[in-house]
C-alpha cells in the first residue's frame, strides 16, 4: 500500500495545469484522488509525476448557461447531489451522484475524475449518456467537445487525450413533461453499481412517449445505451405493457461483464428488471 516514487506539482490555474502536463510525460492529473490514489497505492498506476488540480476554483461549480447546465469538472458528487439547479433541470445526474459510495467519497470524488477514470461500474456515465451531456476538453492547442456517448470508449478508456484536461460538462435542461430515474443495485463489497439503470422519458399531453433514453452502468465495459429500447418506446402509450415489451424485445448487450458476484447472464437479466422499473418510475414522475 505504498506508491512508487513520483513528483508532486500543484497547479494554480487551468493554464498552469496544461503547462505542467506539457512538461511531464506520463503525468497524471489529481482531482479528488479517490480513484487515482488507490491505484497508485496498489502500484497498478505508477505515474512519474502527479499534477494536483484539486484547488483550481474555476473548475468547480454548477451554473445555468443558456438552455443548458454547466458543471465544472471538479464538482464533487455531494455538490451534484445537493444542487437545487440540477434537481430542477437535470435530476437524473443529482439522483445518480447521491448513490455514489458514502459521504466521504462523495465529498472528495469529482465528476471529472469519475468520467476520466471510466470505471464501468461507476454511477455517472450512464446518466450522462442518457441526458445527452457534452464533455468539454482543453489542451495547450485549444478546446474541443465530445458528446458523452462518444466519450466512453471501453473499459477504463475514454476519448480523453493524454495532455487534455476536462474543464466542464454541459447538460441540456430537461424539457417539460420529462421524468427520469436512476436505480442502482450496488455491489455489497465495493458499493459500485452491479447494475445502474438510468431512464428518462418525455410524455406528450396525450400521455404518449415523445422521447426516451435508457442507459446502464455495470453491464458492459462502458455505459450501455439501449437505443433500440428507446426507439421502441417513442410513440408508445408508455403503459406497463408497452415498457415491458420494449425492454424484453429490444434490450441486448454484447459481452456483458461478469465476475464472482454476478455473471453476465444475471447482469443482463437485472438490466431488464431494473430497466423496466426505472422507466416506469421515470414515466410516473413525468406524469407528476
Amino acid at each position, binding site marked *: *500500500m*505504498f506508491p*512508487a*516514487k513520483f513528483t508532486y506539482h500543484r497547479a494554480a490555474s487551468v493554464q498552469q495545469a496544461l503547462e505542467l502536463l506539457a512538461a511531464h510525460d506520463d503525468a497524471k492529473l489529481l482531482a479528488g484522488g479517490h480513484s487515482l490514489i488507490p491505484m497508485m497505492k*496498489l*502500484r497498478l498506476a505508477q505515474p512519474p509525476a502527479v499534477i494536483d488540480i484539486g484547488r483550481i476554483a474555476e473548475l468547480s461549480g454548477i451554473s445555468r448557461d443558456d438552455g443548458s447546465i454547466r458543471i465544472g469538472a471538479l464538482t464533487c458528487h455531494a455538490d451534484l447531489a445537493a444542487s437545487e439547479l440540477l434537481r430542477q433541470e437535470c435530476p437524473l445526474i443529482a439522483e445518480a451522484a447521491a448513490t455514489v459510495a458514502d459521504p466521504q467519497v462523495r465529498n472528495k470524488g469529482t465528476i471529472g475524475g469519475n468520467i476520466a477514470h471510466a470505471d464501468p461500474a461507476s454511477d455517472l456515465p450512464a446518466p450522462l449518456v442518457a441526458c445527452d451531456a457534452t464533455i468539454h476538453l482543453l489542451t495547450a492547442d485549444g478546446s474541443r467537445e465530445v458528446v458523452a456517448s462518444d466519450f466512453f470508449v471501453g473499459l477504463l478508456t475514454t476519448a480523453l487525450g493524454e495532455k487534455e484536461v476536462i474543464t466542464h460538462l454541459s447538460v441540456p435542461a430537461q424539457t417539460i413533461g420529462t421524468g427520469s430515474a436512476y436505480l442502482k*443495485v450496488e*455491489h*455489497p*463489497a*465495493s458499493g*459500485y453499481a452491479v447494475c445502474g439503470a438510468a431512464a428518462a422519458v418525455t410524455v406528450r399531453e396525450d400521455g404518449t412517449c415523445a422521447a426516451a433514453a435508457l442507459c446502464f452502468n455495470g453491464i458492459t465495459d462502458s455505459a450501455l445505451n439501449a437505443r433500440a429500447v428507446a426507439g421502441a418506446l417513442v410513440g408508445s402509450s408508455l403503459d406497463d405493457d408497452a415498457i415491458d415489451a420494449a425492454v424484453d424485445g429490444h434490450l441486448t448487450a454484447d459481452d456483458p461483464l461478469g*465476475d*464472482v*458476484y*454476478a*455473471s453476465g447472464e*444475471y447482469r443482463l*437479466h*437485472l438490466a431488464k*428488471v*431494473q430497466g423496466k422499473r426505472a422507466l416506469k418510475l421515470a414515466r410516473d414522475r413525468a406524469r407528476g
Partner: protein
Amino acid sequence: MSGVLGSSIRRREDPALITGSGKYTDDFTLPNMAVAGIVRSPYAHAKVVGIDTRAAAALPGVVAVYTAKDVEASGIPGTIPTAWLLPDIKTPEHPILAKEFVRFSGAAVAVVVAEDRYIAADAMELVEVDYEPLPAVTDPREATQEGAVQIFEEAPNNISFDWELGDEAKAAEAFDHAPRKVELRLRNNRLIPHAIEPRAALADFDESSGKLTLRLTSQNPHVHRLLMSLASVGLPEHKMRIIAPEVGGGFGSKIHHYADEAIVSFCSMQLHRPVKWTATRSETNLTDAHGRDHVSIAELAMDDEGKILGLRATTWAAMGAYISTFAPAVPTYLYGTLLSGQYDIPAIHIHVYGTFTTTAPVDAYRGAGRPEATFLVERLVDLGARECGLDPAEFRRRNFVAPDNFPYQTQVALAYDSGNYEPALDLALDKIGYADLRRQQAERRNGGGKLLGIGLASYIEACGLAPSAVVGSLGAQAGLWESSTVRVHPTGSVTVFTGSSTQGQGHETTFAQIVAEKLGIDMDQVEVVHGDTDQVQFGMGTYGSRSAAVGGSALAEGLDKVIEKGRKIAAHLLEAAEEDVVFEDNNFSVRGVPDSQTGWGDVVLQAYLAHNLPEGIEPGLEFTTFYDPSNFVYPFGTHICVVEIDPETGKVEIARYLAVDDCGNVINPMIVDGQIHGGVVQGIGQALWEECVYDEHGQLLTGTLLDYAIPRAHNLPHLELDRTVTPCPHNPLGVKGIGEAGSIASPAAVTNAVVDALSHLGVRHLDMPLTPEKVWRAIQDSSQEGRS
C-alpha cells in the same frame, strides 16, 4: 458495590479507544527501528528454483534481505508448530520462510528490512524469485480425489487426518430401519476474518540482556511465547516478553502463530535493532487463517411421528497448505461433538477428513466448528420437518432434550450439564408472532409480490474452553485452564492480572465488575492488567467464549481467597471466632454483634503492616489462582430470521431478526448484547455476502474489500434480543459464554429463512452466500422444472 454485577456499566476502555489515544502495535515507534516487508509467493503452488536478493540488498536504505537459507544458518528452529494433534495426523514441516516449495499464494519467501516502509516496498519488488509453477487444488474434497496434485509426499491423497466419532454401526442400524430419511449435500463457505486492525509485530531484541520484546497482535501472548520458544524463534521463555497492546479485533485470527512474527523476531535478533512489520489489508486477506470451508454429505433418519432416529455425516474440511495452530481441533472436537444439537438423537456418526489444499491455512474463526455443526444440524432438521409434514418449530420441539434429562450424555462425547430449550423457543416464537407470520406467508404465496420466509435456528454451543484433562486426552498440547492474580494494595485498591486478554470484548469493565461486586469496592479502585507476559503470571488467552467462564472464574476464586484471608485477619483484630466473621458491604463484622466490625481498609493495611497478624498468617494480600473448569459450558437459544425476497432479482432482505440466547448469569447486559449483535452480524455476513473465492490456479479472487463483502450497517436489520437465564451449575459465577453464539446461530437462521421462502417452489437447499444471482437461479430452475 453490590449490584454492579448484572448492570450495564459503560465500557471503561472506550474513551481511550474512541478518542484515538489507545495504542495498537503499529502505533509504537522505537528508536533506531527498521521496517520489514515480506515478499510473498504470487503462486499457489510452485517449486522455488532460486532467489536473487542482490538488487534489493543494493537499494539505498535497505538494511538486510533474508531468505530461508539465512534462517537455517542462524540455527533457530524456524518452524511453525501445530498445538493440537490427532491420532496419525500429518503435520508436515512449515518453515517460517519457504524453502523448496511454496504451497499457497501469499506464503512468505523472503524478508526485506529497510529504513522505512517506502524503501521496503520498493525493495520487495526487486527481490527476484524464480518459480516453477505447479498445479493447485483448492477444494477440500477434490483434493482427496485421484489425479489431484499431491501437496506433501508424506500425506497421500492430501489427507492430514481421518477422524471419526460416534457409533457407525448403531447409526447404520438406525438408518436401515427408519421410515423417513433426508440427505443434504452442502458447502460451508470459506471466510476471511477481517479484524479491523491488520496483524502486526514489532520485535526488539536487546543484545546485552539477550531478551526479545515482541509487541504483537495476539489473543494469547503466553501461548505465542510458548510456541515461539519451542518451535520458531527458539529463545527460552524467560528471555522473551510478548506484549499484546490494544488489539483491534481478532475473531480467532490472532490466536494462531504465524510465520510473520517469527520472521521479524529473527530479523531483530540478527540486526540487534527493533524491526516492525504491519500487514496491509491485502496481505491480511492472503495470510490470516481463514474460517469454515467444509464440504459435507449429511443424513437424518426419522420415524413417522417426526422423532429423530439417527444422524450421520461425512465432512471434508480444508486445512489449507499447513496445519495451523489449533486447526485440527476445529472440524473435529469443536464440530463433531456438537452434532446432537439441542436434540435427543439416539445414534450419531461423523467422519471427517482434514485435507491439504493450496490455500491459506484454515483455523478457528468466531464459532470455530460450532457454526458449521449448527448449520448442518439445523438445515437437516428443517428438511426433516418438511419430510414429516411438520412445522419446523414443532419438529424441533418433539426432539429437544427434555429439561428433566440433564445432565444429558450425547452420542458424540459431550455431556450437557444443563439446558432448558423449549422456553427459549417459545419466547422466540411468541415475540416474532410466528403464527401470524405463517399466515402472511401463505397469503403472499397466493398473491404474488415479495416472498416471505421464516427461518429458525435452535443452537447449542460448547464453549468456555476447556477442562484440561479432557482436551489433553483429545490431542491438545496445552491445558485450557485460566489464571488470575489478585493484588490488593495496602491502601485497599486492587490490581488484577488476568491471563485472558482482550481484543475488544470489554474485559477491563466486566472483570472490574466482578471485583467490585465481590469486594464491595468502587470500580475506580480496580485496575485490570492483561496481555503482557512479563506482568501476568500465565494465561491461555481469549477465544472459545472462555473469558468470563474460565478467566472470570479464576478471578472469582482468587477474590474468595482474598476475602478468606481478610476474615482471618479481621477475626484476630475483632477478637472473634473466624467462623463468626462475615464480609459484607466492604466490611468485616461479627455475626450478631453489630458494633463489632472493621473496615476493608483497616484489614488490608494490617495485612501489609504485619504488626498484628494471627499466628501462621503471612503478610500481604495477594493470590494467584489457576482455575481449571470441570466441564465445558453450554449456552443455547433460538434465533428467528424473517426474510423478504424479490422474486425478479433474487435479492434477499432481512425484515426481522430475533435472537433469544441463554448465556447463564449476565455480568454486563450491554456488553452481552453487543457480543450478540456482532456475532449475529458476522453470521449474516456469512449467509448473505461473504465468500473467500480462489480460482483454479489458487489465486485469491476476493482479496480486497472491493470484492469481499463484509456486512455494513445500512444492509442490516434492527436486531431484536431477548434472553432466558439458566445458570451454569459448575462455575462460581454461573456464567456461560456469549462471544460466539451469534455467529453460530445466524447462518443457519438466515439460510433456513431463505429456503423456507422458496420451499413452495421445491427448493430444498442453497449454499451460502445467498447472493441474488444464486437465489434468482433457484427460482428460475424451479419454475422451469414446474413447466416441463
